[in-house]
């Protein structure tokens, strides 16, 4: 049974297919409004999440399907000590496809190995969040017209930010990317990501602590939040959370065709005043996420012989 745990599970051809499908959904939504009629998506969210769960649920409803939802470990059988494997086997009896978020890394793989329906990883701790990356790829393709030969700035928490790691992995599969890594010393991109994704593929990258110095050179600026839940130590979180704040003044140094992205939710790392700037693409990114989730649900259900 095909599941999607991480973006590399999908070939470049499949990514193109998903983006093409998403574009078609955007252009002709009526064609898809009953595509999943009679099918059920189970959203198993064992960790707080609003937008990802709602995005999956909206995606399934817009495909004409139904949703079964579990939110919070405290209200589910996990609170009674049920294993992820047993939960996946049980929910497979009720649903045609599962989207799961879990605080532990690798939980989605355990679910996929035990479910008899496709599993989509909706985030497993700090490990992977593939559908966010799918949203990012579609946003870049729609805003820039292509995915190759782009200079991508990643700013904020590059150490714990799983969306950053996934995006680097995904963009490193296209031609000619260049990365500018903007972070405080304590939140620099981990060495293994640099080794596996950048050095081994001879992809150029620079590291800096100054957003102002590099913003004018970027095609994409990907902002991230310093996430409280990734820190064991509250003091470290408080010290680093305001490291980078994007303001209209800083935006003046950016190119006219700069595309500013953020996986959201933001706290204060992008000033609300930036929202009016036509280069702010983060709410388009949210919408693109829903379309890519629709495309992914369609693809996996078709492959499973359920459509």
């Amino acid at each position, binding site marked *: 049974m095909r599941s999607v745990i991480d973006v590399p599970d999908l070939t470049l051809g499949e990514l193109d297919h998903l983006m093409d499908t998403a574009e078609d959904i955007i252009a002709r939504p009526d064609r898809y409004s009953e595509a999943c009629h009679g099918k059920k998506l189970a959203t198993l969210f064992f960790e707080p999440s609003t937008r990802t769960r709602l995005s999956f649920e909206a995606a399934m409803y817009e495909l004409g399907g139904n949703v079964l939802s579990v939110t919070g470990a405290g209200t589910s059988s996990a609170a009674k000590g049920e*294993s*992820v*494997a047993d939960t996946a086997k049980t929910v497979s009896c009720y649903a045609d496809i599962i989207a799961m978020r*879990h*605080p*532990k*890394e*690798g*939980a989605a*793989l*355990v679910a996929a190995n035990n479910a008899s329906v496709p599993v989509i990883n909706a985030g*497993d*701790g*700090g*490990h992977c969040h593939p559908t966010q990356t799918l949203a990012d790829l579609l946003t870049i393709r729609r805003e820039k017209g292509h995915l190759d030969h782009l200079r991508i700035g990643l700013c904020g928490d590059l150490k714990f930010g799983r969306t950053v790691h996934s995006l680097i992995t995904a963009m490193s599969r296209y031609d000619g990317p260049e990365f500018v890594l903007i972070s405080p010393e304590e939140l620099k991109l981990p060495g*293994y990501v640099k080794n596996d994704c950048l050095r081994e593929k001879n992809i150029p990258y620079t590291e800096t602590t100054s957003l102002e110095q590099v913003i004018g050179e970027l095609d994409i600026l990907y902002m991230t939040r310093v996430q409280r839940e990734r820190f064991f130590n509250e003091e470290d979180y408080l010290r680093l959370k305001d490291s980078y704040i994007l303001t209209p003044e800083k935006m003046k140094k950016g190119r006219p065709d700069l595309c500013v992205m953020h996986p959201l939710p933001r706290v204060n790392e992008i000033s609300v005043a930036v929202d009016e700037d036509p280069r702010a693409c983060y709410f388009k990114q949210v919408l693109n996420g829903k379309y890519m989730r629709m495309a992914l649900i369609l693809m996996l259900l078709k492959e499973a012989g359920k459509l």
Partner: protein
Amino acid sequence: MRVDAIRNGIVIDHITAGLGRKLYNLLGLENVSAPVALLTNVSSAKLGRKDIIKVDANIPVDFNVIGYVDPGATVNIIRDGSLVEKRRIEMPEMLVNVIRCKNPRCITSCEQELAHKFRLTNREKKEYRCIYCETKVALL
């Protein structure tokens, strides 16, 4: 120093000096009731110094453990005092319940029944990663 020849069992030879004890522990040989010898820093024409493990019993041995600890080791199977098989060891593609993932955020840290599985991701660097969280295991 002399250690008696064994009648039935295995000899793990050409272990890189210093890895014998690690291999002994990972193979669980402390729990074997038959005679077991761990020889360390033995002179070797090929290696200079080497470790050797001799087990004087037909016990099941996980060759994947040997391949993980020291793929350069050789295994001699002895039956009725004669060498019946000499095996070259390779690094296994997958390690199951040989080592444990130490990442506190990994699903294996809270689900006790889950097997600890590591996949060989770089043969040259002898690099294994947890299949669940992709944490790299430290080199021996």
